[in-house]
């Protein structure tokens, strides 16, 4: 198809032709086109369907405010719904499809809704679909959901990469129109660090759309020369294709740079878009203004456009929407469009101006004091009906109608910190108010400076003020300085189905109904009618609705209020906001020192927070994980096993007050712990609830090594720093995390000492006498490598934990395996670790669940009353010390075949099973190879006194009821003889 609607001139590169497809039909375009301009050039006006009534829709604007021409861009896993044709930069091979229509754009079955529109008035659904109650989910809602929605997702993973970055500047200039360019020139020449961002791919803003001159030369010459000067400045960064989406606290702006959307395919490793966090000392909003429409009957037909958009398409994109065009305006700007189109050879059917006193024009007809009262044409405009000043009607034959209701300053970012714009009578529009985001100022049309001269001057002036630059303004080009005043004209009297929000199908009638039913505040209006809730965020519709509501309420517009704008300025791809943190990179992965060795051993890994830990080490022939885990447990208890426990938090606590400090941190005493000894410690939160537990080894008078659980390492460190800096600032204590510095392995089992003796250097006596239970020391291994040794046991066996610098952890593990062969050493993972600690009755994360006290955990007596420690006071509250408080207990099935389920609840042996009779719950459960039975730990009301009691364990969720016996939590070696062996 040929580009019948191409005009002369413009900023497109006719030397190259790009081919693209819309709804599977091929068309030609040129570099510099947008999808919308290319479609218009090819004579395509129908581009979409509206949300509710599925009315035919054509392009309304030439920018990011577009409500109508939204399409599905690209295909396959790159399909991008709801993309504005007006902002899609043309590339060769572009594919787009219209959306929200079936079976086709020209014939859309759901257009039937339009016939019944009278029954689908605003908020109708709140009043019906209530009977029968059950029908909502089954019938009505699915119906509504299917009809609703716009574009569709590919349902496949987005294959593209996204980046995020940070940039810093003295002045961020938002918008590269006349005021933005003048500001950049001023600040740039003064040597300030400047970022100039514009959402368009061509800098220049409105100057690209106008025919008037700067210094008596075409405006684009000045733009080109200015951009050239700016890009030569090392202190100025030009960011085209970059939308500043939000003004956040303290001068931080979010900006999305579309680095790849204009390319057919992305170079490898390059992102599709980048989210920039711009840290600005000052910011200047030069976002220009948006033309507003006038509402009249059937003003939504394809071909009805904003007059300024027609002008942009003609002047910048060398395109007209039709060969015969009419203009409907209430201000002089509309006439400018007529003149430009006429000069490009487009036939002007007439200019319809609501003002009675407008000069006639000799090139084309001007109908003063007239209004457009209706339009005709099935899938696009063919006629407009005009009511003339004398009341008579006249029909104009035209394929496009340019509508101009005046201009609204783009104040959006000024509202992002809840600032309210103020009403300007001369412009009959909202302009930025006084309460702007700190550091932000506004210039140009965004600040109500509608003339080009005003824009240039105010931009330069604003830069000078923002940066407190001395001296005069740079020489700015001579430009038009037409006085702009706008008299409000929102809708043609008597219209009803006159569209305000063209995407959501909100008409003047709907606003009237909203008022009639008492939804009169702006917020109620928006919510009740969905006005301004569409993907264009009401950029072209909110004002009209507000004005009509004001009129109905007999109030002024400012009295009626304004809806405040929130980020983002235009919608942002969720992928962009996520950046690289997705898939495996969602969170950093922490690997243990023995990870690579474990991988060679074919370990199965499990996520523990950000850590990857070996869960078990399957051997060939083992079919089920239980086989591996049972073996690891049996072998460890029978001989010796090794487990990487590096993930436990380690904190070096040093200083002359270190012992005293630990006394405050732990609820039990530490002051008297001897050097060379380790002690178990329980940490409470200030509210008296158990926070974390671990051991603290005293390496020297003034040096402790504290361990925390893997999960709480960070939290505990923070807490310790809080206590150190905020509560006891004069204590001589220094803290530093050494979690990653040391590879730490548990060596457990009756032969653990024998194994260690083979690697610990001979000068260190680790016999039971020389190195008894709970001893700790700095030693050397394997011929002089510094190491730390602790005789502590989580498994209940004779056990040690040995630590060496992390880089040697891999080698040490291999050495232990090799030296341990004679003992049939076994590596064990987190599952076996868990089984053994349950067998031993050690509390862990499932028991320290943030609601349990020392009393619940069976350590009530540990809470020293003789000293001040965090949480000791509030732990005394009666609610935490009731007679039937939960106590930790062991649970065994009466029939050893039966399974214990963590999360099951305990009920009396007989009687009802319900919440009122709930006695407790299971926190941890496992199969115990040592007892050859399932076992569990849990909390039971007054459990301390209920050993031997038979109860029912119920899990209705998993459909299980088991008869169980309450036993001691210490299933294995309750006297602790093994670990002292």
């Amino acid at each position: 198809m040929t580009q019948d609607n191409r005009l002369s001139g413009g900023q497109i590169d006719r030397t190259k032709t790009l081919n693209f497809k819309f709804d599977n039909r091929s068309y030609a375009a040129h570099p510099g086109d947008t999808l919308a301009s290319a479609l218009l050039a090819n004579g395509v006006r129908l581009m979409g369907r509206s949300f509710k009534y599925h009315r035919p829709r054509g392009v309304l604007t030439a920018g990011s405010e577009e409500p109508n021409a939204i399409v599905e861009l690209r295909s396959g896993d790159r399909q991008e719904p709801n993309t504005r044709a007006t902002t899609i930069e043309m590339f060769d091979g572009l594919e787009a499809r219209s959306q929200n229509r079936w079976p086709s754009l020209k014939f859309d079955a759901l257009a039937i809704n339009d016939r019944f529109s009278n029954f689908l008035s605003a908020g109708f659904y709140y009043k019906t679909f209530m009977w029968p109650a059950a029908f909502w989910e089954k019938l009505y809602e699915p119906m509504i959901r299917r009809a609703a929605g716009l574009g569709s997702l590919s349902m496949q993973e987005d294959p593209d990469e996204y980046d995020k970055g940070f940039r810093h500047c003295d002045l961020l200039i938002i918008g590269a129109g006349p005021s933005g360019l003048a500001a950049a020139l001023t600040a740039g020449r003064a040597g300030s660090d400047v970022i100039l961002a514009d959402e368009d791919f061509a800098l220049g803003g409105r100057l690209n759309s106008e025919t008037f001159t700067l210094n008596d030369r075409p405006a684009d010459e000045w733009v080109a020369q200015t951009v050239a000067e700016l890009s030569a400045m090392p202190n100025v960064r030009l960011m085209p294709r970059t939308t500043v989406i939000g003004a956040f606290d303290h001068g931080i702006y979010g900006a999305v740079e579309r680095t790849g959307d204009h390319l057919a395919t992305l170079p490898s490793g390059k992102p599709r878009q980048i989210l920039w966090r711009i840290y600005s000392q000052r910011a200047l909003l030069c976002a220009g203004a948006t033309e507003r429409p006038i509402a009249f009957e059937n003003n939504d037909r394809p071909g009805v456009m904003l007059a300024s958009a027609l002008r942009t398409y003609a002047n910048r994109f060398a395109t007209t929407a039709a060969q015969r065009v009419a203009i409907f305006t209430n201000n002089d700007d509309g006439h400018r469009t007529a003149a430009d189109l006429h000069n490009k050879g487009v036939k002007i059917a007439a200019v319809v101006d609501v003002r009675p006193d407008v000069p006639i024009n000799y090139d084309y007809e001007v109908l003063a004091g007239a209004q457009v009262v209706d339009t005709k044409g099935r899938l696009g405009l063919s006629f407009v009906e005009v009511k003339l000043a004398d009341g008579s009607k006249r029909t104009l034959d035209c394929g496009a109608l340019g509508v101009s209701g005046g201009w609204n300053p783009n104040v959006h970012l000024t509202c992002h910190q809840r600032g309210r714009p103020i009403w300007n009578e001369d412009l009959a529009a909202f302009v930025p108010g006084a309460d702007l985001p700190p550091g932000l100022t506004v210039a140009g049309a965004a600040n109500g400076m509608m003339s080009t001269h005003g824009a240039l001057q105010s931009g330069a002036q604003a830069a000078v003020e923002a940066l407190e630059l001395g001296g005069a303004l740079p020489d700015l080009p001579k430009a038009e300085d037409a006085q702009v005043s706008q008299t409000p004209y929102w809708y043609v009297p008597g219209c009803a189905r006159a569209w305000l929000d063209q995407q959501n199908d909100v008409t003047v009638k709907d606003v009237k109904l909203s008022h009639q039913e008492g939804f009169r505040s702006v917020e109620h209006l928006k919510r009740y009618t969905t006005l301004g809730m569409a993907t264009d965020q009401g950029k072209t519709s909110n004002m009209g609705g507000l004005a009509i509501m004001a009129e109905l309420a007999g109030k002024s517009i400012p009295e009626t209020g304004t809806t405040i704008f929130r980020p983002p300025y235009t919608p942002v791809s969720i992928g962009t906001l996520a950046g690289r943190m997705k898939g495996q990179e969602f969170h950093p992965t922490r690997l243990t020192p023995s990870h690579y060795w474990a991988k060679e051993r074919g370990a199965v890994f499990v996520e523990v927070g950000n850590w990857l830990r070996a869960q078990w080490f399957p051997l060939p022939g083992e079919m089920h994980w239980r086989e591996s885990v049972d073996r690891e447990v049996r072998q460890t208890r029978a001989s010796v096993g090794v487990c990487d426990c590096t993930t436990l938090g380690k904190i070096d606590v040093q200083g002359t007050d270190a012992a005293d400090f630990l006394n405050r941190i732990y609820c039990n005493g530490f002051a008297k712990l001897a050097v060379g000894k380790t002690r178990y410690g329980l940490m409470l939160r200030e509210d008296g609830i158990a926070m974390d537990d671990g051991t603290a080894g005293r390496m020297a008078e003034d040096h402790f090594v504290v361990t925390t659980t893997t999960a709480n390492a960070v939290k505990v460190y923070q807490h310790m720093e809080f206590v150190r800096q905020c509560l006891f600032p004069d204590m001589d204590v220094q803290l530093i995390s050494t979690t990653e510095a040391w590879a730490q392995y548990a060596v457990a089992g009756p032969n653990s000492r024998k194994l260690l003796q083979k690697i610990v250097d001979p000068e260190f006596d680790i016999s039971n006498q020389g190195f008894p239970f709970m001893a700790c020391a700095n030693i050397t291994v394997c011929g002089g490598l510094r190491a730390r040794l602790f005789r502590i046991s989580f498994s209940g066996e004779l056990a040690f934990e040995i630590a060496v610098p992390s880089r040697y952890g891999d080698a040490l593990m291999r050495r232990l395996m090799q030296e341990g062969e004679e003992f049939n050493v076994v590596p064990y993972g987190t599952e076996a670790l868990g089984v053994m600690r349950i067998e031993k009755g050690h509390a862990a994360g499932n028991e320290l669940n943030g609601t349990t006290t020392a009393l619940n955990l069976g350590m009530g007596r540990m809470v020293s009353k003789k000293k001040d420690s965090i949480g000791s006071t509030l732990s005394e509250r009666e609610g935490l010390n009731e007679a039937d408080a939960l106590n930790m207990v062991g649970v065994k099935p009466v029939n050893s075949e039966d399974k214990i389920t963590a999360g099951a609840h305990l009920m009396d042996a007989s009687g009802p099973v319900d919440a009122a009779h709930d006695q407790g719950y299971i926190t941890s459960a496992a199969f115990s190879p040592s007892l050859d039975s399932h076992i569990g730990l849990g909390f039971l009301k007054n459990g301390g006194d209920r050993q031997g009691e038979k109860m029912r364990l119920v899990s209705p969720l998993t459909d299980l009821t088991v008869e169980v016996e309450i036993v001691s939590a210490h299933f294995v070696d309750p006297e602790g003889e093994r670990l002292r062996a």
Partner: protein
Amino acid sequence: MRYSGFKVIQQALTGHKGWKPAWRDLELKPHYDIVIIGGGGHGLATAHYLAKIYGHHKVAVIEKGWIGGGNVGRNTTIIRSNYLLDGNEPFYEFSLKLWEGLEQDVNYNAMVSQRGIINLIHTDAQRDAFTRRGNAMILNGADAELLDADQVRREYPFLNFNDARFPIKGGLAQRRGGTVRHDAVAWGYARSADSFGVDIIQNCEVTGFRIEDGTCLGVETSKGFIGAGKVGCAVAGNSGRLMGMAGMRLPIESHVLQAFVSEGLKPVLPGVITFGAGHFYVSQSDKGGLVFGGDLDGYNSYAQRGNLPVVEDVCEGGMALMPMIGRARLLRMWGGIMDMSMDGSPIIDRTGIDGLYFNGGWCYGGFKATPASGYCFAHLLARDEPHPTATAYRFDRFRTGHMIDEKGMGNQPNLH
């Protein structure tokens, strides 16, 4: 006027001339039996149940702005009763049952949609905890279902089952959970309360309480003094400020929670999903927008707006869970004020001042609680004793050590 399909057709044929305002526009009376401060979901629901269940008609709801303009108008519309603790579960299950009959009760279609909610499981410890919770739900008469990974996959094949950093190992489902058209809840309760003669007064801001020897006699407002037999406060987000006027310090911090809506999309999400390994939960509205949210910004704020780091954090969670939404666009974001209590659970209780009652501290769980909160607050106001399902929501539970701490985070509100 009763709403019905028939009414809609009849009005359509007569040019919609007959629709009346959903609630009357009224002048204040000098005195009411009960004045409810706060024209949000909870306040309006309280008025509805006071009138309909407890027969109190001399009731006013006063609202400093427009009704429904607070958190009931800005939330992620989720309803559920998947709580763990005895102090909570019966209350939230009561609320869910009230949701199930809401439309017929108030004759307004709030689009209560029991499309189901799934809390995803990523670790064995999480499965244990969710098993305990699911059992607690069932023991309290609610519904719960434990799903394995394959069952989740069958319902949500597009979740990240391929290269997830934290693989999905299952989920805890509550089929009766779902979503509700949030604005309609406020409007429906308002219209119903109005029909029972309750006065709804908008743009009427409380400036103080009139308290004489330990008794509250009424409230000073921007429209003058209003005498009241009893005053009930339900001003989510402003509890601290309001009760401060009565000289009270609360176990509450006000924080900002952001929420997000995407552009309209054809249906992809049948129900509600909560990501168990990141801060992200999502559903899809009937209009097609993905409605999603995550964690608090984390700092005290009354600004009703948040900052980028949390926006990014939430979207990272979204992409980690559903890599297919990369090209869907975030359309709107907003921040609401959450009255975060010290144990993450609410307060519905008398105050130390006779005639002054408090309802607040809903954290970010207030919306789903709206019907039960209104019902129980009405019960407390009418009978001067707590409703059986809300006996634990007392001010003094922190003093006595009877906290209701679902998450086990202790006295740090921004962690709940």
